[in-house]
C-alpha cells in the first residue's frame, strides 16, 4: 500500500510526471502537479515508478504506508 509523496520545494513544475502518470497526476494552471490523494491504484504503479525516475528534479517519492504515524 503506497502513496505518492512530493517535495514541493524541489519541484520545478516541468510536467514530466503528469505526462507519464496521467491516471494519478494532472497539472495546475502553473504547471505544477496535482496528485490524486490516497492509495495508488495497483495498475498505475508502473507509470508512477517511471514518473518518479523521470522527474528532472527527483521531487517525487513512493511513500510506503507503515502505520507508524506519531
Amino acid at each position: 500500500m503506497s502513496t505518492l509523496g512530493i517535495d514541493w520545494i524541489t519541484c520545478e513544475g516541468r510536467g514530466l510526471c503528469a505526462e507519464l502518470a496521467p491516471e494519478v497526476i494532472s497539472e495546475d494552471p502553473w504547471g505544477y502537479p496535482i496528485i490524486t490523494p490516497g492509495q495508488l491504484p495497483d495498475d498505475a504503479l508502473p507509470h508512477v515508478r517511471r514518473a518518479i525516475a523521470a522527474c528532472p528534479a527527483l521531487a517525487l517519492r513512493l511513500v510506503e504506508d507503515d502505520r507508524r504515524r506519531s
Partner: protein
Amino acid sequence: MTSWERLLPGSGASGELRDLGTHHQVYGRLDLRRSAHVLIADIREAGLTGRGGAGFPSYRKLEAVRTASRPTRGRPVVIANGAEGEPASQKDKVLLTHAPHLVLDGLQVAARAVGASEAVIYVHEGPLVSAVAKVIEARRRARIDPTPTRVVSAPARFISGQETAVVSRVDGGLALPRSVPPPVYQRGVGRRPTLVNNVETLAHMALIARYGGAWFRGLGTEAEPGTMLFTVSGAVQRPGVLEAPIGVDLDQLLGIGQLTSPVHAVLIGGYHGTWIEYADGRHTLSDASLQSVGARLGAGVVVALPASTCGLVETSRVVTYLANESARQCGPCLNGLPAIAHALTGLARGRRDPSLPAQIETLSHLVEGRGACRHPDGTARMAGSALRVFQSEIDLHLVGRCSATAFAPILPTGERPARESVGVGA
C-alpha cells in the same frame, strides 16, 4: 480579573519581572531536580497545548523528541520560538519584554525533559536580541541554567517563525521552510532531534514545573485547560495583550477593552485564522466552541473590525501582504497566492465581475496542501472566511457600491510604527 494573570501579573507592565531577583520573589525558584519523566508527566496532566497557533499537545512533542534521541543522532536541541511574524499579534514580544525569565525557565524545563545539550531562543532582528542576551547573561552569572542558552536572530518576516524555517535558521541557513521528511523532532538542527516551542508555551511550562499540572487546570476548560495570551485590537478602547482563561466569553474579552464602535465581524486567530460574524450572539473563546463557526483560537489574535470599515478591503490588504510574504519556494504558493490577492483586490475595488468569488474559491482549493508549509492553506482559509462573513458586502461591491464610511486601515501589514507598544491590558 487579577487571578487570571499568571504569565503577566499586573506588575509586569512596569518591567520589574525582568529582574531575576524579583522574578524569584514572585514565582519562587525553579527546581529541576526531578526526572524528565516526572516533568513530562506534569505537563501531560496539565493538558498544556502549544500556544504558537497549532495547539498541539505539548507533552507529546516532548515525548517525541525524547524518544527520537539516541547516541547516533546526538543530543537534542530545544528552541524557544519568539519570532512573532503575525503583525496583529504582540503577545510574544510583550512576554519576552516583560517576563523573559519565565520563558527561559520554561526552556530549561524543556531541555531537561528531552535531555537536550543546547538551548536556543529565536527572535526577530531588532532591539529584542540584545535585551534577551542581557537576560541570558544575568542568568548565566547566577548559574541557574543547566543547559547553556544562546540567542539566534532572524529577519522580521512572517515566515521566519515557521517551525522548519526556525530549524533552518538556527542550523546556520536561511529562515525559510524546509521540506518535512524527516520531521524536526527526529532530525533538526545539526541533524539532531529538535524541539521547537512557542515562548508562551514555555512560560506555561515554567509555571507547571513549579506548581503542578492540577494547578494549571484550575483555570480554563476541561478539554482546553489553562490561560492564554490574547492580542486584542480594532474597535476596542484599550488594545493590547490580555491574559485570560481559555473559554472566556468574547464579549468579556472585548468588553475589557470596551468597544469604540459597532462591530459586525471579528478576526480570530491571526492572518491564518478566520473571520466570524459578531452579531451571531455570544461566542466563547475555546477551540471547542469556535469550531461551530469554523474558527480556531490559533495564536490568540482577536481583532474587532469596526462596522464602518470594509471587511473586503481589509482582507484584500492582508492577503496581498501574505502573498508577498511567501517564501517563494513552492510553485502553487508562489503563483496561487498573488492570484487570490489579485481577485480579492478586484472585489474590494468594486470590479463588477460576478465570477470573482468563485475564482477565489477555485484558487483556494488549488493551493491547499500543495506546499512545503501551511502558508497557502492559512491564507486560503482566511480568504474563504471573508467570502462567507462579508457576503452582503460582496453583493454590494459587485454592483459597484460599498458600505464603508471609514477608510483608515485597521489590520497591520508590516510597516509597524516604531512605538506601537501595546501595553498589557488592565
